[in-house]
Structure formats: C-alpha cells, structure tokens
C-alpha cells in the first residue's frame, strides 16, 4: 500500500490533485492507515495514469469518470468506448475548425494593417474590430 506522497511521486501528480480526484469520484483510496492517512494500491496508481492519459486525449474529468465506469461495467463493450472516442474526435475537430476560422480572421486583420507607424485613430485593426459584425468567425456566429 502506498501513501498519498508516494503515489504523488510515482505518477507525478500533486497531492492536491489526488485529493481533487477523490472529491470528483475518480479515485478512491484503498484504505486508511492507523493514523488515518489515505492509502492506495497498484490499481489506484494505474487509475491515475489512465486519467492523465485520457486528459491528454482531450477527455474531460466527467467523460473520464464515464470511461472508468464503462471499464468496470460487465455489460459494456469496446464499441461503447470507441463511440465516445469518436465523439471526442468530432468535438476536437469542431474546435479546430473554429480556431482555423479565427486564424483566417486574424490574417485578414493583419493584412489590413500594413503599416506599424499609424496613429491609433487610423489603426485599421481597431477600426475593423469597432465595426458591428466585423471579425466574427464562422464558429462565433453559430
């Protein structure tokens, strides 16, 4: 059994984060020491590493909780996990699309201002951002 400090070092996650995971019902200590300190087993360590890797893929803690729940659900299958993974990819691609639109808008603003010695009053970027409906990305319009 490992103390919270040892788990923290092993998985490179702060103690506060481990306590936060507990409050978020993502992680439950395996038990408590005689002194009342949290104790964790190997499965807890694997669970924290699972959470970290899932976060790197863009899953939120709420979604990770669901993935962990499915992992322990005898009635679930890999297709359930796959569906959620595809949905996450759709969400990320939608965000990329909005970011690309924002990037294009920024390009337009930069191109509109080809001189850096203009006064603020003459700044085409400020002027453009002052216009109602200007510099709106397609994503922001939705």
């Amino acid at each position, binding site marked *: 059994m490992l103390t919270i400090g040892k788990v923290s070092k092993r998985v490179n996650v702060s103690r506060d984060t481990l306590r936060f995971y507990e409050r978020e019902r993502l992680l439950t200590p395996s038990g408590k020491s005689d002194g009342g300190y949290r104790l964790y087993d190997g499965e807890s360590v694997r669970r924290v590493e699972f959470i970290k890797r899932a976060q790197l893929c863009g899953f939120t803690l709420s979604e990770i909780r669901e993935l962990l729940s499915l992992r322990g659900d005898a009635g679930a*299958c*890999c*297709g*359930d996990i*796959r*569906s959620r993974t*595809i*949905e996450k*990819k*759709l*969400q990320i*691609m*939608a965000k990329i*699309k909005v970011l690309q639109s924002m990037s294009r808008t920024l390009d337009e603003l930069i191109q509109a201002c080809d001189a850096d010695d203009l006064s603020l009053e003459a700044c085409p970027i400020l002027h453009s951002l002052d216009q109602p409906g200007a510099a709106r990305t397609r994503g922001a319009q*939705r």
Partner: protein
Amino acid sequence: MKVEIIRASGCHNCDAAGESLRMAALGAADGVEWREVNVLEEMDYAVELGVLSLPAIAIDGELIFASLPTAKQLSLAITRRTSVRA
C-alpha cells in the same frame, strides 16, 4: 428530401434504432432518400454538419437531431418540412 443518419460502425444505439428510423423516414413522405453516413469515412462532413455526438440525424444537409430521435419525432420533422415546402 435527403435524410441522413450519422453513425459509427459498432455503435449499439445506432444498430438498435437505425432500422425503425429508416422505416419511419421512408414512410413519412414521398421522395425521401435515406442515407447512412459512416462518421469515420466522412468525418469532415460530420464536422461541417456540427455533429458532436452519435448517432445524429440530418435532413437536407442540416443537423436536426443531435441525439437519436424516436421514430415519431423523426416522422414529424419530415412531415413538417414537407408541408413547409408545399
């Protein structure tokens, strides 16, 4: 009118409800074309539609149901669009 179900292979929700929705769509109005969109083969199209969860239903290239409707809801949506066109 083109009705599309955007789904993933192996999606249990899609398999279970797909056939009843197809029947509801085809029976709701004349000239309904039913198409199954495999999201992994047409990811860009799904993103363009605004699909964020699966399965979803689009009618004439517009996302109408972000989650699976009942056969009755789908039939009603098709009927409404048909009456608007007429």
